[in-house]
């Protein structure tokens, strides 16, 4: 057996501040290289979904060891484990939403009639400040260009449904909402479409 080991202490991800839940040990020509990654970054690098099975690659042996999913997945900021969240139903901090995002999504979807993405108010001062700033500032408040486009597409869909069901007042509300989203997009000086 390769020395796959489970680490449960709080170790930070090599790429961000979240807790590392995936520990990858690579043995290349007898040299041991260890990478510690959070769930998100491990997924981004295509390392998860492999379990803790050793994977053989050409010229190298990769050993992945993961904290047991669902039991020791932990928020790096507040230390809350996913298991503890499932027990009392409360998250510990804002960062929990990022760390547990994939697991929370289906729960949120079930609890909110399929809703998974926020539509509606944005903190007023936060938005005003972002619109005066750079692209990153805007993205922190309104999301990436793709997310923004998705939100507008979702609103258009809701509007079409309302019109199809002859819910005209609801449609009017959605049309206002759509205009507001498009105006946010354009910034305070921008003209709504």
């Amino acid at each position, binding site marked *: 057996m390769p020395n796959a080991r489970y680490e449960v202490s709080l170790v930070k991800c090599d790429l961000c501040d979240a807790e590392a839940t995936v520990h990858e040990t690579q043995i290349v020509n007898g040299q041991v290289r260890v990478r510690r990654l959070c769930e998100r970054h491990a997924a981004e690098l295509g390392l998860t979904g492999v379990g803790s099975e050793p994977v053989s690659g050409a010229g190298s042996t990769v050993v992945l060891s993961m904290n047991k999913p669902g039991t020791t997945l932990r928020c790096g*900021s*507040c*230390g*809350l484990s996913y298991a503890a969240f499932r027990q*009392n*139903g*409360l*998250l*510990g*901090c*804002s960062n929990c*939403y*990022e760390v547990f995002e994939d697991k*929370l999504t289906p*729960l*949120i979807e079930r*609890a*909110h*009639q*399929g*809703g*998974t*993405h*926020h*539509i*509606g*108010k*944005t*903190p*007023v*001062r*936060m938005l005003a400040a972002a619109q005066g700033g750079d692209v990153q500032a805007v*993205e*922190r*408040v*309104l*999301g*990436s260009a793709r*997310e923004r486009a998705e939100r507008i597409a979702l609103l258009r869909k*809701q509007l079409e449904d309302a019109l199809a069901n002859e*819910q005209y*007042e*609801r449609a009017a*509300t*959605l049309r*206002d*909402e759509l205009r507001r989203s498009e105006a946010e997009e354009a910034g305070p000086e921008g003209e709504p479409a």
Partner: protein
Amino acid sequence: MNTGGLGPSGGGNAPGDVRNGGVDPDSGRASDVVVSSRVRLARNLAGFRFPNRAPASERTAVVVKLKPIVLGARLSAQTEWVDLTSTTPMHRMSLVEERLISRHHAMGKAGEPMHGRAVAIGLPDRRLSIMINEEDHLRLQAIRPGFDLSGVVEEIEHADDAIEQKADYAFSPRFGYLSACPTNVGTGVRLSVMLHLPALKITRELEKVKRAADDLGLTVRGSYGEGTEATGDFYQISNQTTIGKSEAVLLREMESEIIPSVIAYERTARERLIKGGRRGMEDQAWRAVGLLLHARLLSTEEATKMLSRIRLGIALGLIPGLRLPLIQQLLIASQPAHIQMAIGQELTQEQRREARAALLRSKLGEAFATKRPPSRLIRPGSAEAKPEPPVGPSNRPVKRPPEPGQPGPGNGDNR
């Protein structure tokens, strides 16, 4: 002559008409069915752990940060700040009974510290309240009598924006306003309407309303009483969905689509009941008046049930001389902590029942004594057209033989 009509003479409520003033101008719109409208926003500060995960020092830091912001926002003519850690359980429970704070905020769940819990209350009307360190750092709430969701939403939006001018909220583009419980994430908005639905209960149509509400992502819960038991047929309908629909859409669904149809449904059921037996309805309402005017011991449950019957009687125009705001006031005043606060000390359950009966006798008696023109006070022959209450409460009791098993005079009185 107002016979069989709904609402006050000359101004009956069409089943679906919510613009109608209801039966009492001081009780808000559609007050024959709607008791009150409420909105609550869940908000958290960026950079602090949620209250359930924060140690005492961090909870305190949140209070220290928020207190000047909330008080400085000048959201009401005056704001009362209550540090819940230094109040008595009785005081906290009285705030729960006023619906200014949650039971959870007053008592905490088992083993949870009270540390850093506070509430800001808007004065003089006590319609705006801001809980600090409840399940979330901030729970903003506005409540008004009658059907006025737009009004409370406007008020709470203003409060939210004022606080956000000085505080960084925990917000993500994807999940919106981040809350400790994912059931509140997104807009963080919970709209609730308290409805009085005695007719739908009697006609056994309430189950249909519950099922319809369920399909629309709403919950229906009893407002008084424990668990599923809705003492006095007061129900709270609230949205469950908070993410994926904007505040405006959530408001529209409740205000223009769902609640008006429940109001219309209840009014239609009342109309049917009245047509099926006006005398019986009248009898029920006046018996409740009689009971409260003479009882010497009353549990909260019985008081709530009787006040509910009287409320229905007033809404149907069967009890001239009493007004809805008084009934709302008495529903709160007869709750356990309010009874004790009024007396100024802790009471045993038995003492509370006695004090409650005395309170209701005197308040209802006063209302009849002051609201009725003297010439109409006693007209024994006119019961057919206008049933009259007996004179006054217990202080000047109507002559009647002492009833066996009842406490003697003076025993139950709290003069």
